[in-house]
Each structure stands twice: as C-alpha cells, then as structure tokens.
C-alpha cells in the first residue's frame, strides 16, 4: 500500500526517526554537501544529490579498527539516512557484497550497517552526468532501500521496498496516498525512465578480461592527471589502507590512482604508471567485480564525471572500450 507523507509532517517524522536512529540526511558538509546528522530546524536539501556519498557513513575516511588501550564499550543507535538517492543506496548494497556477504566479514562495517534504515528519495530529474540506468539502476530503483519517497505536490508518496520498510511505514501510519497522488508519482516515474542508455555494457566484462594488454589503454589514460577525485567521490570505491600509530590501528581510504597504493616494500611497483592505475580502476568496476559478483561496481551517479579536472568521462571510456575491443 502506498502511503502519503505530507511535507508539513516531515519535521515530526524526522524527529521520531532521530529518537530510534542516528539519523542522517543531505546537508552542508565541508563547504560542499553530504549526508550530515539531522538536527531540528536544519534547512532541507532533499532535492539535491549530495556531493559526498553515503558511503562515508558506513566506511568512514578514517576509523579506529583497534585501540591499544582498553576501549570503552560503545552502544549507539543504528544509522538511518533520510533522502538518500537510489544510486547511493545501490552503492551501499554493492559494498555489502564486499564487506558482509562473503567471508571474511568486516566487523566495523557490519556494525554500522546492522539495522540501518534507508529512506530513499526518487530522482525525477537526473543530471547531465547521471547514467544510473546504464549500469542496472534507475532514478526510481529500490535496491538497497527500505522506503522510496516520490515527490508529489505538498509531500511525498511513500512505498516500502523491504520488510524493514514495511514495518517502519506500518509503525508511522501515514495516511494512505490518494489516487491522484499515486497517479502523479507514477507519471514522474514513467517520465524519468527516459534516462538515455548511451553505453552498451552487455558482454563488456568478458571483453575487458581479454584486453589487459590492449594498446587502447595507452591512449585512454593519457589525459588522466592521476589524482583521486574520482575514487574518493565514488560511492562504490572501497579500497583502504591500514596504519598503526602509537595509539591505535587505523583504517583510512586509499585510492588505486596513487603510486603508493601498490608500492612493495622492496621498492618495486607493479603498477608503475598512470596507464596501469587507470586500467585497474576500470577493470575493477567493469570486469573483475561483474565476473565475480555479477554486478557492475558503478552506480552511475556521475560524480566522477562532474568533478574530474580534465573531464575524463567514464561513459566515453566505456564506449571507446566497447567499440574497439
């Protein structure tokens, strides 16, 4: 049953959520936007897909894995994210595959992920950089979501996308959405389906597997500057580094675009130049991941396209690879 969440009831709903969850939603973060802890009276930014991804909540930039003195036992509420876009939710679903759905299970990640509630915001107006439909998602995709909200006049039509979502809606008991509201939500959905599918990914993983030594990589990486904008802004990139300090063992984000990422103790570096590093990034997302876990490690959010200083557009890279391999 579709429910209706009135815009006027939003503040109350969020306050209730915040009582049982550590609630996050889109807001201003470090001079840009990201998912921030919800506080009463904050300005709503629900019509915006944040610059920083939801990944940060589950896989922080830096986290203490282990402290060398006795840590205090922590009890905390599970996380909830209100207004997460389908692309970001799908990304967390992909991270689950890596960190919890196959052994060894990643403890700190699992701890954050357990019982987390995702209330998603459908995306009726995809940006120029969006290509979620190409990689198997969509602006109304519910993978990884518990509830999907679709903006209509005066509020949102809410639909459960999981049992947890059903329970939540049950418990909230918002009024049933009217026929008109449901029709409006459906119309939004039908219209947004038209996100162009520019790139053909069918069979690309197999092709890529055979193309490790292909000369095309030489040309493709040429303009890449070798910074980590694409990886750090990617909702699915999850590589990390572990460092010991005198106080703790820390996990920090790492990027395959850095030479240090693969540097051996001996001084040998198997990925010596930008070519090998960029190839790794593309291969991981569109070859290794699909071959092992049957899904692309890309959700088409377009952040890497928007932010790349030299406009190295992953869609063009894929098109070129698909065309020439």
């Amino acid at each position, binding site marked *: 049953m579709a429910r209706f969440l009135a815009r006027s009831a939003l503040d109350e709903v969020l306050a209730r959520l915040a009582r049982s969850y550590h609630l996050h939603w889109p807001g201003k973060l*470090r*001079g*840009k936007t990201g998912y921030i802890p919800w506080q009463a009276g904050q300005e709503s930014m629900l019509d915006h897909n944040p*610059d920083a991804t939801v990944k940060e909540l589950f896989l*922080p*930039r*830096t986290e203490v894995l282990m402290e060398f003195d006795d840590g205090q036992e922590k009890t905390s509420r599970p996380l909830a994210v209100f207004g997460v876009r389908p692309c970001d939710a799908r990304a967390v679903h992909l991270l689950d595959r890596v960190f919890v759905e196959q052994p060894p299970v990643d403890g700190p990640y699992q701890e954050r992920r357990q019982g987390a509630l995702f209330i998603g915001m459908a995306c009726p107006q995809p940006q*120029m*950089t969006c290509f979620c439909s190409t990689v198997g998602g969509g602006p109304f995709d519910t993978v990884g979501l518990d509830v999907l909200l679709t903006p209509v006049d005066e509020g949102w039509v809410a639909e459960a996308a999981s049992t947890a979502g059903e329970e939540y809606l049950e418990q909230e008991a918002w009024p049933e959405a009217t026929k008109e509201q449901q029709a409006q939500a459906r119309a939004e959905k039908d219209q947004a389906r038209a996100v162009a599918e520019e790139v053909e990914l069918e069979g690309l993983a197999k092709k890529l597997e055979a193309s490790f030594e292909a000369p095309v990589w030489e*040309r493709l990486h*040429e*303009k890449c*500057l*070798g*910074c*980590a*904008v694409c*990886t*750090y*802004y990617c909702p699915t990139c999850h590589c990390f*580094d572990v*460092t010991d*300090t005198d106080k703790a063992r*820390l996990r*920090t*984000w*790492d*990027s395959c675009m*850095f*030479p*240090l990422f693969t*540097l051996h103790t001996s001084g040998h570096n198997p990925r010596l130049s930008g070519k090998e590093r960029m190839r790794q990034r593309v291969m991981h997302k569109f070859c290794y991941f699909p071959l092992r876990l049957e899904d692309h490690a890309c959700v088409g959010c377009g952040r890497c*396209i*928007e*932010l790349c*200083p*030299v*406009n*190295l*557009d992953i*869609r*063009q890279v894929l098109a070129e690879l698909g065309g020439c391999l």
Partner: protein
Amino acid sequence: MVQEQLRKEAARLLREGEVDVFIGYARGSLPAQSTVVFARSSEDAQELVFDPTCHPNLAVYLPRFKKERVGVVVKACDARALVELIRERQVDPDKVLAIGVECPGVIDRDRWEEGMSLDDGEWKEALAVACEHCRLPAVDLFHCWLGEKKVAVEEADAQVSSSPIDEDSEERYRWFSAEMEKCIRCYACRQACPACYCPECFTDRSHPDWVSPVHEPPEAMLFHLVRTLHLAGRCTDCGACARACPQNINLLALHRRMEAEAVRRFGYLSGQDPDAPSLLGSFSKDDSDDFIK
C-alpha cells in the same frame, strides 16, 4: 579566428612532422568544461578548440614526454609555467613548440551557472580567480602567437579578497582551519600543477611516513603548507590547482601570499625568464635579517 588558426597550424605541424604529438583542448562532455586531446595526426587536430572553458594548464603534461617532439597550446599562465619547467630542466625547449593564444580568461566551473552564454560577456561572471590578474613571460618562447599579444588583466596585485589578511592571528587561523577542514587529500591540486612534477611526492613516502593518511586537519595543513613552500618562487599563479580542487579550497590565497612576499622581500617574480636564477636556489648577502635574533 584563433581556433581556426590553431587547428590549421597544429595540423601543419603534425603533417609535416615538426611535432610527434600536439597537446590541446577539445570539447568536453559537459557545459563549460573542456577536455584534453593528444593529437597525433592532422585529422586529430580538427578536434582542437580554444575558448574560456579551456582551464587546465597543459604544461603539466610536458615533463611526461622525454623523447617525442611536442606541440602545445599555451595561455599566458601556461607559458609562465613552461618558463619554470625549462628553468628547472624538466622540459627541453628544443623539443617543445608552444603556440601562444590570446586568452580572455577562463571559467571556474564552481562559479559557472547553467545557461551562461560563452558568446557574450556573460561567462565573465564565472571568471576564475587566477585570471583576475595575468602577465606574459618577459622572454619570447613561442613558436607562434595567435590573436593579439596581450593578456586580459595585467596588474599583478597579489591579493585574494576572500582571505582574512587584515584579521588577527586567531581569526586567520580560524580561516585556515576551515579551509583545511575541507581537504579530502585527493591531491588533485598537486596533480594539476605543472610545478609539482616530483616523481615521488613527500606525501607518497611511507618510510618514514611524513604525512599520515589520517583524515585530520593537521595532516592536511602539513601537506598544504609544505606544498606552498615547495612552490614558493616557482608557482606562476595559473590557478590550475584551485580549479582542480573538488572542495573549492582557497589555495591561491596561500600561493599568492608567497608570491607577494617574494616580490616584497626579494624583488622576485616567477615565470618570467628561464635563465634567471631561482628564488630559493639563490641569495643575496643583503637579504634582510629582520626576523632573526
């Protein structure tokens, strides 16, 4: 028109074998965004464009080419960076053919708003901070120059309005902390910078790990302060770092502070003459001792 002349000359250079590769700008996949093209044939040269969306500094790619002869399109700021690369023996001037272009200034995509037109002056609302002043190198190192040989704005007033230069130290630290808080350590600034050509940056050292990968402002401060000092007297104020930064950190404030101090204290301006001594590789016995006990 500059763009037509550019395509023609680049095509000629490639056809006649004067260069092996020509580095220029091409139309990007987003509005107000160009991309980089490495043309290897006269047909590739037809992709070349030049307009205010051409903001990356192409000199950054030059040290990668050790054997090939390279043609490159340079704005005044890129030319200043080229001067520094020649001075520091990273680029062999005999192997680089620089085509200078008259540049009206470039767009900072963070200031850009959808629908701004490139044809009239509207885009100037989104003019990059670095373009607020500009200058040409003092020496002629161009293979040829397209358009009028002038720059958009000439006076070198090395100040950035948004940095709290007149505030007290506490306020200045607050400003600095807030800027550093934004840094995600993606190193886009370093990678986009022509002067940051070290094969191994101090941040990439793991033995000892000079800068920890921990996401904490002091680590970002350490990186940016050391980078600023490494660039003192070498930064040519092209602003490529600030435009590459996905977090809009006011990096130019730091670099311009160093530039201003170099001018004030040592009468030194970078990017002018490849034969001039470098700022920190030279000294005068009369340099001031005013900060030393």
